[in-house]
C-alpha cells in the first residue's frame, strides 16, 4: 500500500512537471512569463553554483530560525504563566483575541520605521506572526490537563514546579508540537514576505531582484527553493513530533493488550 502510494505520488509529480514543460512549449501560455520546466531547472542549477545564492539562503534561514526560536520560547513561557497564575488567563483573554488576528504584514510599516531593512525588521514580523500560533496551542494544551492526573500528582506531594514539569508540560506537549509546526510554516512565509517587501537580505529580496531584472526563470527557480524549504521544514517538524510523542495516542496507535 505504501509502495503504491509512493508510485502514485511520483507519477503525479512527473505529470505536473511534464505539463510545466509542454504547456509553454506549445505556446498555450507566454514563455516569457511561464518558462518551461527545463529552463527553470537550468536557472536553479546556476543559482546553486552561485555563492550569493547560498548567502541569501543563509540569511533567510537565520531569520526564520531566530524568529521561530524567540516565538516558541516566548509562547511557551507566557502560555504556561498565563495558565498557571490565577485570574491571569481571564484577564488576558480579550487582549489576546484582539491582538491575534492582526496580520503580521500590517506591521511592515512599523518594522521599517523602527529597524529599516535590517534582520531585526524580519524578526519583528516573524515573531509576531508565529508567537500566537504557539501561545494559543499552549493555552489549549494546558486546559486539557486531566483532573485525575493532577490530583494524583498533588496527593503524592508534587509541588508547583514538579507538577508543571512532570504533568502539565507532557499534557500540553502534543498541542505545543502542533503549535511549533504551524509556527515554523508561518515563520517561513513571513521571513520571505519581509525580505520581498522590505528588501532585507535573503531569498525574498533575491526574488524581487530577479523579477525587477526580468530574470523570469531565476525568479521561478528561487520560488521553487522556498517551496522546497517549506517542505523540508514541515517534514522535519513532523519527525520531531513523532519522536517526542511516541507515547501519545495519536502516534502509538492501537495497542493490543
Amino acid at each position, binding site marked *: 500500500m505504501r509502495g503504491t502510494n509512493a508510485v502514485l505520488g511520483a507519477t503525479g509529480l512527473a505529470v505536473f512537471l511534464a505539463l510545466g514543460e509542454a504547456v509553454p512549449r506549445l505556446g498555450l501560455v507566454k514563455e516569457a512569463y511561464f518558462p518551461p520546466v527545463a529552463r527553470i531547472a537550468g536557472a536553479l542549477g546556476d543559482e546553486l553554483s552561485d555563492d550569493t545564492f547560498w548567502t541569501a539562503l543563509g540569511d533567510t534561514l537565520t531569520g526564520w530560525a531566530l524568529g521561530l526560536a524567540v516565538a516558541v520560547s516566548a509562547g511557551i513561557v507566557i502560555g504556561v504563566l498565563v495558565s498557571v497564575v490565577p485570574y491571569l488567563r481571564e484577564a488576558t483573554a480579550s487582549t489576546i483575541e484582539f491582538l491575534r488576528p492582526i496580520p503580521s504584514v500590517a506591521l511592515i510599516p512599523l518594522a521599517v520605521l523602527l529597524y529599516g531593512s535590517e534582520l531585526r525588521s524580519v524578526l519583528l514580523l516573524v515573531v509576531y506572526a508565529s508567537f500566537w500560533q504557539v501561545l494559543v496551542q499552549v493555552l489549549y494544551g494546558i486546559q486539557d490537563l486531566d483532573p485525575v492526573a493532577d490530583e494524583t500528582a498533588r*496527593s503524592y506531594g508534587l509541588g508547583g514546579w514538579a507538577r508543571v514539569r512532570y504533568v502539565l508540560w507532557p499534557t500540553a506537549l502534543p498541542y505545543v508540537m502542533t503549535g511549533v509546526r504551524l509556527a515554523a510554516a508561518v515563520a517561513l512565509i513571513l521571513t520571505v514576505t519581509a525580505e520581498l517587501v522590505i528588501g532585507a537580505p535573503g531569498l525574498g529580496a533575491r526574488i524581487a531582484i530577479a523579477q525587477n531584472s526580468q530574470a523570469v526563470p531565476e525568479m521561478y527557480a528561487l520560488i521553487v527553493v522556498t517551496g522546497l524549504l517549506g517542505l523540508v521544514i514541515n517534514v522535519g517538524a513532523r519527525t520531531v513530533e513523532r519522536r517526542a510523542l511516541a507515547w501519545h495516542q495519536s502516534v502509538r496507535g492501537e495497542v493490543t493488550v
Partner: protein
Amino acid sequence: MGALLDVSGLNKVYEGSGRRVEAVRDLTFTVESGELVCLVGPSGCGKTTLLKCVGGLLAPTAGQVTLSGRPVSGPPPGMAFVFQEYGRSLFPWMRVGDNVELPLKQKGLSKSRRGELVDDALRSVGLADAAGAYPWQLSGGMQQRVAIARALAYEPEILLMDEPFAAVDAQTRADLEDLVRGLWRERGITILFVTHDIDEAVYLGERVLVLSGSPTVVRERLRIDLPAERDQLHTRVAPRFAELRTHVYEQIQAAKRGTPAPEPSDRIVDVEDRPVDKS
C-alpha cells in the same frame, strides 16, 4: 494513644451557580494503625468527596481530619492514594518504573533507595518485569497493580483506595482483592478502602462502615469477624459471610429508602451469630 486517622464532624457543602449541595453531612470515624477499614454506601452517597477530604485534596466545609495527630490541610506526606481511574492516574508519558519512582523523587530519596523501593513494590504486585513498559501497553488490571505499586513504594502511613476495582472485570477484581488483602497482611499497612460493592467490603475489611445516602453520615460500624485467612472460593460461601453481607445489604437498602439506622451510629455493632455457625 490516638488513632492513626481521626475524622471528626466532617462536613462538605458544594456551593456554586445558585445551588447548594450538602454532599457529606457529619462523618466521624477513626482508623487504627494496621487496620483495613472498608467504607461502603449506596452509589452517589459522597464516598469520593469524603475520601478526597480525608486525603487533603478537598477542603472540608467543617470538621477536622487528623493523621498521626497532625491536622490535614493539604495532601499529607504519609498518605498514598489509589484512584478508580487507573488509566488517567498513571502518566502515559512515563514508563511503569518512572511512574512508580516519581513520588519518591519528590520525597528526596537517593537514587539507589528509589531503585530498591520501585523493584520491591513492582515485585510485590507481580509486575517485576514491567518496569520498562508504558502503562498503556498493559491490561487494565495490570495498570491498577502499577498504581498500587506506586502507592506501596511511597511507604505511606495510610493507603486510601477510592473504588479501585470498579472498572475492571470480575476475575481481575477477585485477583486484585486478594492482592490487597495479601499486601495488608504481609506488610501491616493501614488501608481505608472505599467501595460501593457490599461483597467486596465484607470480603476485604476487618471493619466495615456503612454510610447513609447523601447527605452522608455513618449509618453503622460493623466488625467483620471472618477468619484472617480468606479466599475467594471458601470465604464467599461461608454462612457467616452470607449473614454479614445480608446485614450490610439490608442497611444499604434502608439507607436508600432513608429509614433511620436502628442503632446509634457511634457504637461498633456485632451481627448476632446464629448458634449453628458457632460449631
